[in-house]
C-alpha cells in the first residue's frame, strides 16, 4: 500500500467523518448467530434430525466404500479384533481358567467399550473437523458430536449382530433367556452416557485442542479399569475399597449388566441400574448444557 509519511492525515480523516445516526427499531430484529435459549436449542436440534441421520449414514457408507469387501468390513473388523484379543488374553495369558465363557466375556467387553472410545475420540475432534460445516451453515453445533455418536451407533449394529451369533455358535454356546431384552436398556443408557461425555470433551477440545492428546491415554486407563480383558474378582475378594470404585464405574456396570444377561443368565442387581441411570442422565444433561453454553465460540 501507498502508506507514506502522511499517516497522520488518514487518522484525522477517520476522526473527522461527519456522522449520521441511524435509529433502528429493534422490533423484529434479533442478533445473528446468538445462542438460543436451551429449550429452543433442543427444538432446533430435533428439527435437524433428518440431516443428522443422513450425514451419519453417509459417513458410515463412505468409510467402507473404498475397500474391496465394502460393508463386509463392518462385520469382519469385530471378528478379527475378537480373534486377536482371544489369542492374547485367552490363549497366551491363560485368563480363560478364571472366567466362565471367557471368549463371550472378552468380546462383549471389547466391542461395547470400543463404541464409547470411538465416540469420545471422534466427539473431541468433531468441532475441529466440522469446521467446514460450521463455516457454511447455521445449525446447532451440538449436532457435530451427536452425529459422531450416531455414526458409531450405526457401526455398532452389525458388530452386535456378529457378537450375538458368535456367543450362540462358539462353544460354550449360551442359550438366550428373556433377559436379553434388558441388554437394550443397558445399551440405551450407555449411549446416553457416551453422548453426554462426547459433548463435554467436544467443548474442552474446541477450547484447547491439546486435550485430544490426553483423551487417548485417559481412555486406555479407563479400559483397564473396566474389566474388559480380565476379571477383577480375585482382586476384589480382599480389597473392598477397589470394589466400591469398580462398581461406581459406569462402563464396568454396562459390561457387567450385559454379561449377566447374555452369558450367565442372571438378572442384574437393581442397584446397578440405579447407578448407571444416574450416570447416563447426569452426564447427558451436564454435557449438553456445558456444550450449549459455549455455542457462539465454535465458529472461530
Amino acid at each position, binding site marked *: *500500500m*501507498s*502508506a*507514506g509519511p502522511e*499517516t497522520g*492525515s*488518514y*487518522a*484525522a*480523516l*477517520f*476522526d*473527522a*467523518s*461527519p*456522522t*449520521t*445516526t*441511524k*435509529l*433502528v*427499531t*429493534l*422490533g*423484529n*430484529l*434479533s*442478533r*445473528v*448467530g*446468538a*445462542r*438460543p*435459549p436451551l429449550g*429452543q436449542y433442543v427444538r*432446533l436440534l430435533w*428439527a*435437524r434430525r*433428518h*440431516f443428522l441421520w*443422513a*450425514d451419519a449414514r*453417509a*459417513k458410515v*457408507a*463412505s468409510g467402507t*466404500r*473404498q475397500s474391496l469387501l465394502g460393508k463386509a468390513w463392518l462385520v469382519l473388523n469385530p471378528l478379527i479384533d475378537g480373534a486377536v484379543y482371544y489369542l492374547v488374553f485367552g490363549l497366551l495369558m491363560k485368563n480363560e481358567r478364571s472366567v466362565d465363557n471367557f471368549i463371550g466375556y472378552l468380546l462383549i467387553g471389547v466391542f461395547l467399550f470400543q463404541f464409547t472410545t470411538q465416540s469420545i475420540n471422534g466427539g473431541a475432534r468433531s468441532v475441529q473437523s466440522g469446521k*467446514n*460445516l*460450521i*463455516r*457454511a*451453515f*447455521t*445449525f446447532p453445533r451440538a449436532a457435530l458430536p451427536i452425529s459422531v455418536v450416531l455414526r458409531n451407533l450405526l457401526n455398532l449394529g452389525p458388530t452386535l449382530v456378529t457378537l450375538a451369533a458368535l456367543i450362540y455358535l462358539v462353544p460354550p454356546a449360551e442359550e438366550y433367556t428373556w433377559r436379553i431384552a434388558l441388554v437394550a436398556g443397558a445399551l440405551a443408557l450407555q449411549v446416553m452416557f457416551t453422548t453426554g461425555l462426547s459433548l463435554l470433551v467436544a467443548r474442552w477440545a474446541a477450547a484447547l485442542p491439546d486435550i485430544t492428546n490426553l483423551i487417548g491415554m485417559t481412555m486406555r486407563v479407563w479400559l483397564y479399569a473396566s474389566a474388559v480383558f480380565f476379571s477383577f474378582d480375585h482382586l476384589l475378594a480382599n480389597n473392598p475399597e477397589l470394589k466400591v470404585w469398580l462398581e461406581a464405574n459406569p462402563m464396568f456396570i454396562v459390561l457387567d449388566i450385559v454379561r449377566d444377561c447374555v452369558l450367565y443368565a442372571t438378572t442384574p442387581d437393581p442397584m446397578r441400574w440405579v447407578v448407571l441411570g444416574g450416570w447416563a442422565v447426569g452426564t447427558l444433561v451436564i454435557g449438553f448444557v456445558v456444550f450449549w453454553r459455549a455455542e*457462539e*465460540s465454535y*465458529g*472461530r
Partner: protein
Amino acid sequence: MAADLDYPMPPTAQSAQRPLTGAIPMSVQAPPYTGQLAAVRPRSGSTPVLWPTVAVQGLRMFYRTPSTDTSHGRRAKMKRAVLNVMGQEPKVTVRALTDISFVANSGEQIGLVGQNGSGKSTLLRIIAGLEKPTKGQVLAESTPVLIGVNAALVPDLPGEENVRLGCLAMGLSPAEAQAAIPDVIELAGLGKSIYLPMRTYSSGMAARLRFAIATAARPHILLIDEALATGDAAFKERSEARMTKLREQAGTVFLVSHAAQTIEESCTRAIWLHHGRLVLDGEAQDVAVRYRKWAWAFAKDKPEEAKRILEEAFAERRETQVRFDVPEPPRGRVRERHARPTGRDAKQARAAAERAAAIRAERSDL
C-alpha cells in the same frame, strides 16, 4: 495478509467517542436463528415501504495469527526461545474489519467492493452468523443465508446424494429437499455425472453443484460471495438467471464481486472496503465508479493518484452510527442505554471536524 499490517491505523482511542454503540440489553433480544427461512414478503406494488432488515453495529474482527515476518513482534529472547521450542511462531494481530456500521433495508441490493483481503468475505460470514466478531454485533430480521462455494459435501457420495444432504444441512425438511432435487440437478447441468461420486468431479463441476445446492434455499436475506464467478460460459448464463430470480424473491441482497461492473448493473447501493475499513457507502454507480478508478490507478502503478481517490472517498464518507430503539423495556429492569454524547465527547468531535476541514481546505488549495 502481511501488507495489511503496514496500513496506517487511526488511533483506536477514538472509538471511545461513540457512546451510542452500546450493546443492546440481553433481555430484549428476540430469539436468534429459527432454523427456518422467513417467508417471502409480498412485494408491495408501486410504493415500496422500506424497513431495516440488517443492522451492523460497530463491527470489528481481529485475528491473532502466527507470522513469519521478522519485523513484527520484537519480544524478549527468552520468550521467543521458549515459544520456538514449543513450535509456536510469533503472533501478530490482523485487523480484518475495523468499526463497520451500516443499516440495510428491505429491497436493497448491496454490493461489496474492495481488493483481495479487504474484508468483504469476512463481513459476509459475520453477517451470516458463521463467525463471531471480536466486537460489535449484527442484527437481522431473519436468518441470513450465505451462498458461497463452500457447502460441505461428501466426496464418496454421488452428486445426487450430496444434493439431498446439502438441502437437509440448510434446514430443509426431507419433503422439501426431495422437491428441490430435480431443480438443483437441472441447474447444475452435470448430465449423467450427477450419478457419479463427487470425488470424480473436476473442481469446476464441484463448484457448479455447490452453487446449485445453495440456491435451493429461498432466503429472505441473501448473501452471495463471488458465486457468479464459477463455471463455464454456458453455466454462467443459467446461474445468472437463477441469481436474478433469487434476488427478486429476497428482501435484501449482499453481493461480493470483484467485477465492479456487476455491482453497478445489479445493485442499488455499494460499500467499498479497504483493509477492513469502510471507505464509502453510497449509491452503487458512484461507489463502483470510484472503486474502478482507484483500482485502475493502483494497477497502473500510480500510487499518488490512487491515494488521492481513496482520500477523497474517505473525506466524503458519512460515518453511520447505529442505535437501537428499544420499544419498551420489559418490566423496567433494563436501564436506558442510549445516553446523549457527553460534553467531552462533543468537544472532541468538534476538534476532529476542524482538523478535517483544515485538511480539505488544504487539498482544495492545491
